[in-house]
């Protein structure tokens, strides 16, 4: 296929993902990586590099407004980033090592990516709590001053919140960072439940703080991919631009469209792409 045609295909593909993702309440990278791995001929190394660039760009685009509104908690992001940046870097190094040093390494990545996407599918089915009740704030969260407030227009008042169980959440964020770097995913799907269900952040704060964490995590992990040459401009440029435009359209449509139907469609897409990647991995390893 002609290179210009590839630019167009990737632009339209990521534009469509950019529109769908906000309507379904997922990050673009979570759809882009498994779908591209399932249907495009690029090596998984370049797909993960593009996935991280996508996740980073959407986190960078949305974080400033969320910070201005008091929804994204920068302090919590910095605390979490200390461990998750290190694990995201480790994940990137391990991920590229597996595909480049282990024979049939890419099939192990396909297989584990498929399993991770299945996990995301299950996480997405689980409910979230809009305003979790904080019965007791642990001493670490208290000492770190992990609290904040924002004006909630639907309630017409300022809502105050507190984070708790900071220490308990650290192992979860280490795992999240590792997966993000290894598979090129933004990992909001995992950050949000940890922030919301474990650390008791209200759902809006959890989503917004997750964006700030993704910005810090993926930027560090992406450096590994840049330095190793796994960021191919021919793939990254049209996808980042397409996704940036698409997510703006998606955000506007969220007001009018029926997100429930779209969420079901996206869940089906996720499930199918997970199964295709698992099959690709097992087939490549000669297991099916």
């Amino acid at each position, binding site marked *: *296929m002609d*290179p*210009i045609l*590839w*630019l167009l295909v990737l632009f339209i593909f990521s534009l469509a993902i950019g529109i769908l993702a906000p309507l379904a309440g997922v990050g673009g990278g979570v759809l882009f990586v498994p779908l591209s791995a399932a249907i495009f*001929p*690029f*090596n998984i*190394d*370049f797909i993960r590099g593009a996935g991280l*660039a996508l996740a*980073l*760009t959407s986190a*960078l*685009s949305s*974080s*400033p407004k969320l*910070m*201005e509104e*008091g929804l*994204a908690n*920068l*302090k919590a992001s*910095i*605390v979490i*980033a*200390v461990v998750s*940046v290190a694990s995201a*870097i480790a994940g990137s190094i391990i991920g590229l090592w597996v*595909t*480049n040093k282990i024979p049939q390494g*890419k099939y192990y990545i396909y297989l584990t990516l498929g399993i991770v996407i299945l996990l995301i599918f299950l996480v997405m089915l689980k409910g979230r709590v809009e305003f979790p009740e904080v019965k007791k704030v642990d001493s670490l969260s208290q*000492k*770190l001053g992990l609290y904040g407030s*924002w*004006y909630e227009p639907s309630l017409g*008042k*300022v809502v105050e919140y507190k984070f708790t169980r900071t220490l308990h959440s650290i192992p979860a964020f280490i795992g999240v960072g590792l997966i993000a770097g290894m598979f090129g995913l933004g990992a909001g799907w995992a950050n949000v439940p940890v922030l919301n269900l474990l650390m008791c952040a209200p759902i809006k704060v959890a989503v917004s703080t997750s964006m700030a964490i993704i*910005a*810090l995590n993926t*930027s*560090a992990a*992406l*450096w*590994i991919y*840049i*330095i*190793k*040459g*796994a*960021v*191919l*401009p*021919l*793939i*990254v*440029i*049209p996808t*980042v*631009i397409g996704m940036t435009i698409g997510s703006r359209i998606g955000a506007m449509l969220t007001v009018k469209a029926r997100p429930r139907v779209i969420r079901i469609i996206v869940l089906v897409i996720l499930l199918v792409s997970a199964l295709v990647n698992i099959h690709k991995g097992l087939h490549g390893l000669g297991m099916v």
Partner: protein
Amino acid sequence: MRVDIPEEYTIFGKILKIGTFVGIGILIVSLILYLINAPSYISLENVIKTWDLPVSKFWEVNTGKGYGGLSELVNIQYSDNIGLIGVAILSAVPLIGLLAILPKLNLVYKILAILVIIESLIVIIKPV
């Protein structure tokens, strides 16, 4: 009704906004250069022929040597490298943001932010 937002939040947000604008702007310039067939470091035809290879093999096949890391970014006469600079700027933005808010943070957060900055800088300066 608005809540009081700490100054470091506003500064960090502003830097992310400006950096993203610059990074995406450079990506758009690079896309335009692709569309007008400006010379690229590796010809687009070769990229397409070999993009199914693992990254180490890809660079071996296309350049006869491995990838030179950050030093490759200096070749800004090529359209693809201009795009890479755009991506590098996007990757550097959160780090610049943290550096900018350091003076505004209290001692504990200053230490934590410095740790995050060091982790990222190690990767950039001395990659594994």
